[in-house]
Each structure stands twice: as C-alpha cells, then as structure tokens.
C-alpha cells in the first residue's frame, strides 16, 4: 500500500458483553475489569490488518463514555447536566495505555474524543440554560483529556456528528480550545451530510477531515467544488448497513475518491464507528477494507 495511506477505524467496535461474568467478579469481590472486551475489539482490528486502531469504545455509547466521568454530569436515561462541567480525572487514558501495550510497534493508536458540541446537544441541561456555555465547558474539559491522551496515542480524533445537523458559529472556537498546544495530529470526524458546511470544515484547525463518503457518495461531487486544503480520511464501508462491501466495490470507491482528492487521501476507514453492527460483519468490512487498500495502492 502507498505508505502515506493508512487503514484505520473511526472509533467504536462491537463486542458482546457477558454481564454474568461481571456478576461473578462482583460476588468474588474482584476488581471489575473491562480489559477482556477492549482486547477483543483490538484483536479483531489487528487480525483484520488495520493499521491505526482505537480502543473500540466498548464501555459505553460515545456520549456516556465521557459524561459519566465529568463533574457536573450524571447519567440517567440521557446524561443530565446538574452542575458546572469540569474535568476530574483522565477518562480514556487508562484504556489507551492498556491498548498501547498490546500493539505491535508498527501499528498506530487513535485516541477518540466525542466533540463538545455533540456532547452539549446530547445532554439535558438542568444547570446552565445556555447551550453555548455548555459546549464551551465541555471543550475545556476535553482539552484536559487531550493533554493527558497525547502521551499515549499517535493521533486524536474528535467525533462531532452533530455538526452535520447544525453547524454553530462557534464550532471552530470549540475545536481550537480542545487542541491548543496538543502536539499529535488531529482528525475531525463528522458523519452525515456535510455538503453544506464543507467550506467551514476546510477552515477547521485540524490535520485530517473524516466523512461518511460511502453512505453519502454525493459528498465527492460536493467536495469537487472546493480547493482541497486538508488531508482526508475516506469513509469506504458503511456502518449503517449489514451488507458487506466487496473488495472490488471498495477499490472502485477509492478510485473515484482519488480522482477528487488525489494525494490528500491519507486514511481509508469505515464511514463511522461500527458499534451497532454485528461483530462478524464489522470484522469482514474491516478485512475487505484492508484488502481493497492493498489492491488499490499496492
């Protein structure tokens, strides 16, 4: 494969949780560990041949992973904000440290942060009555996590799906807060239809833009209208569809995107996190992605 194009994941990966196993740990008064589930996700990514992997975000849906451990938030059916949002302790760092020790030296690790705007839009605010301030305080908290995370990961990916629903005028400020003085490369992942905000996305202070190009192929045409100034993570297999894309289909998709982005493509990936797919399907999608990348880039 062309050395500058790497296969990677976006974040989440499906695992089957055995609650009874936790119950045995509880009754035997063992310290509760999530490591077998993290290992299982990482092993699948490695077995599929993925180059840049994540911890699989197996603990929780992508909102609760963060809000569960932030001061001012409490998890109910949805997260409720009941006090000023603040960073208490590292959130994902222990898991990343664990994964880092599992990885062969030639593989890379992606730390994933759910973006502040998405967090703010997903919670019930019972404290601020100020949507913008909620987002900013999440951003300050995530900056602390990014500072801790950068020592363990090769790249930080900020996941902001809500930007495609509504792009706030302060979006860039939020991202700037998170990445201030962060030394590792930054990817911004926005799934959904981003065709109306491409100009704004290209202005973002990040290294790589990641989008759902397979589920929304019209995005390729939309991007053609702009002068590309950012590296691209190309979504190549759908995360919302059980059918497994063939190697040939993925290779054709890469070729089409290559015509638009040329050498700006530096990563090929699933469209989004794979948490909601059955595990065997998620695995086969990754495997075909890797083979297609090798086929296309050699």
């Amino acid at each position: 494969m062309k050395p500058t194009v790497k296969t990677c994941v976006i974040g989440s990966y499906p695992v089957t949780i055995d609650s009874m196993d936790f119950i045995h740990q509880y009754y035997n008064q063992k310290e509760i560990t999530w490591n077998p589930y993290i290992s299982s996700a990482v092993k699948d990514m490695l077995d599929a041949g993925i180059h840049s992997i994540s911890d699989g975000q197996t603990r929780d849906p992508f909102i609760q992973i963060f809000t569960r451990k932030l001061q001012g938030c409490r998890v109910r059916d949805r997260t409720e904000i009941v006090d000023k949002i603040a960073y208490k302790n590292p959130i994902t760092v222990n898991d990343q440290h664990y994964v880092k020790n599992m990885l062969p030296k030639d593989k890379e690790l992606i730390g994933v942060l759910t973006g502040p705007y998405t967090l703010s839009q997903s919670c019930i605010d019972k404290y601020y009555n100020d949507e913008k301030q909620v987002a900013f305080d999440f951003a300050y908290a995530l900056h602390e996590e990014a500072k801790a995370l950068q020592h363990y990961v090769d790249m930080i990916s900020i996941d902001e799906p809500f930007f495609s629903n509504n792009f706030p005028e302060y979006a860039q400020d939020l991202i700037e807060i998170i990445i201030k003085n962060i030394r590792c490369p930054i990817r911004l992942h926005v799934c959904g239809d981003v065709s109306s905000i491409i100009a704004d996305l290209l202005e973002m202070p990040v290294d790589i833009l990641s989008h759902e190009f397979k589920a929304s192929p019209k995005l390729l045409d939309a991007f053609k209208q702009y002068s590309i100034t950012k590296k691209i993570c190309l979504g190549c297999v759908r995360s919302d569809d059980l059918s497994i894309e063939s190697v040939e289909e993925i290779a054709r998709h890469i070729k089409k995107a290559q015509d638009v982005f040329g050498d700006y493509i530096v990563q090929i990936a699933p469209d989004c996190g794979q948490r909601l797919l059955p595990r065997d399907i998620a695995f086969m999608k990754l495997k075909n992605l890797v083979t297609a990348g090798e086929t296309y880039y050699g």
Partner: protein
Amino acid sequence: MFTFTKDQHIVDISGYAFGGQPGKFPTVLFGGLFFKGQPDYQTAAKALKHMLQLSEKTGNPAIPDFFIKKEEYIQGIIQFIIDTLPKNHPFSIDVIEPSIKIKTLEALNDHNLLCRAIYNSIHVGITDEERDALKHNTPEMAILVAFNPKDKSPDGKIEVLENGAHLIDTGLFDIAKKVGIQKILVDTAALAPGDNSGAAIAAIPVIKEEYGLPTGCAIHNVVEKSRWLNDFSSARKTVDISSNVNIPLFGGDYAIYGSIDNSDMIFPVIAWQDILISEYTENYFGIKPDTTHPRRKLSQ
C-alpha cells in the same frame, strides 16, 4: 440524624417490615448459611435457633439467608427450611447461577414457600429463562442488586435500576415489575476493597431519597476480602461487625451481615445503633419507634 423528604415505602413479609423513615423500624438482619462446603444441617439448626433468640431479645428481625451453591443441595435446604424455621418465618435464598435459581424457584413453589421467600437477587446477569421462571414462580419479595460494572458511584447504581446501563434491555425496577414482584429491596452493591466500596454506603440515602424504597447492602463482603486487614488480624472481626453500623446510620433498612456465626456480635451492635438513632429521630422529628423496635426493649 436526618429524615427523608421522599415518602418512604414500607414493605412487609410475614409481618416483618422493611423501610420507613430512620428510627421507625429496626434494622432487618440477614445472616448467611451454607456458604462453604456441603450443608451441615445440625450446626445450622443450632446457629439458626441462636439467631432467632437474639432477634427476640433485641427486636431486630432476623432473616436466614440460604446460600445454594449446587443444584443437588436444593431439596435438602428446602427441607431444612420446612423442618427448622418457625412456621411463616421469612427467609431469603441466595443463589448466583441462573440455572440453579430457576430450579430453586420451582422447588419453592412445589413446597408453597414462595410467600415467605425473599429472592436474592435480581441483577444485570439475569437471563431470559430466569425472567420466565420468576413470572411462573414469583417470590413474595426480591432484592435488586444495583451493581453497575460501568459506574460504581451512586449515580451508576441508579442508572442500572432505571435502565440497565445498556448491559440489559431494561432497568431492574422494570424487570421486577414485569415478572410480577411488587415488594422490592434495593441492595447498593458493595464492591471490592479499594474499588469505590464506600459508594455502597453513600448510595443508601441517595436511593432512599430518590425512590423511598427499603435499601441496604452487604458491606461485610468488603471487609472479608480486605488484604489490608491482614496486618490487623485481631481487629478484623471488629471491623467486619462495625462496618454494618454504617447502614442504619446512613438511613438504611437492612444489613446482609455475612455468616450467621456473627449473630452474637451483630445483633447487639445494630440494636444499639438503632436505639441511638431512634432516640434522636423521635426527639427531633417526632418519629415514634415501632412496637418491635429495640428501643422498646431497652426498659425491659
């Protein structure tokens, strides 16, 4: 001392009450039998008799908690309950494996014992088969263990009660309702030493204030497994017993105190704590202790 602003539910099994405002009812004490090896019925009968005498003397209700480790022990233990426990006296059955739970429920039904049975327990490990078994053979009362492997804080415990924390399809409250159990006790799930075990105590007033349900825990588990206490071996028993004092002190309604062999120590210690609480809550909040309360025995 304090009272809760939320109305407190009182649930009853065979005349034994759980719940209410602090100082109203005595702390209910669960003593465990048959945790190790094969059931020794002779020794258990003596220990049980002694536990019931202590209960009579102090006023704290005694619930024998029968641990059933293997399927082949079910019939013997049930026969022991029939032969040894006073008629109508409630008991709890403490089983971990779902398959043994199902068989035990069937056996309890066969012997008309479900009306005296406290099911210990419903938790995130519940299977579909266990839910079906509970629907068909419904115990009078159940303990919901608010154990959340994702979040050990009081909020995490509430999450598992409310929605199952994405580990099961619904919350433990909903499961109890759907299988037809109307009388529930919440267990705040004491975790391993050093693994935020104190949250089990902190969660008691939080859950009582949020739901008004009878709440307690098995805080003794934490002490039993503590390696730190190996350096203070002569204090282990004292720490074990005294840790239970936290439960009534934080407004809790019942303590699962471990081996029934600890009854000698636990009953007077908890009765004493209940008396102190009652003296203050009556004086300050006007809460009259129930006629069975240890404080009523103090002047005798």
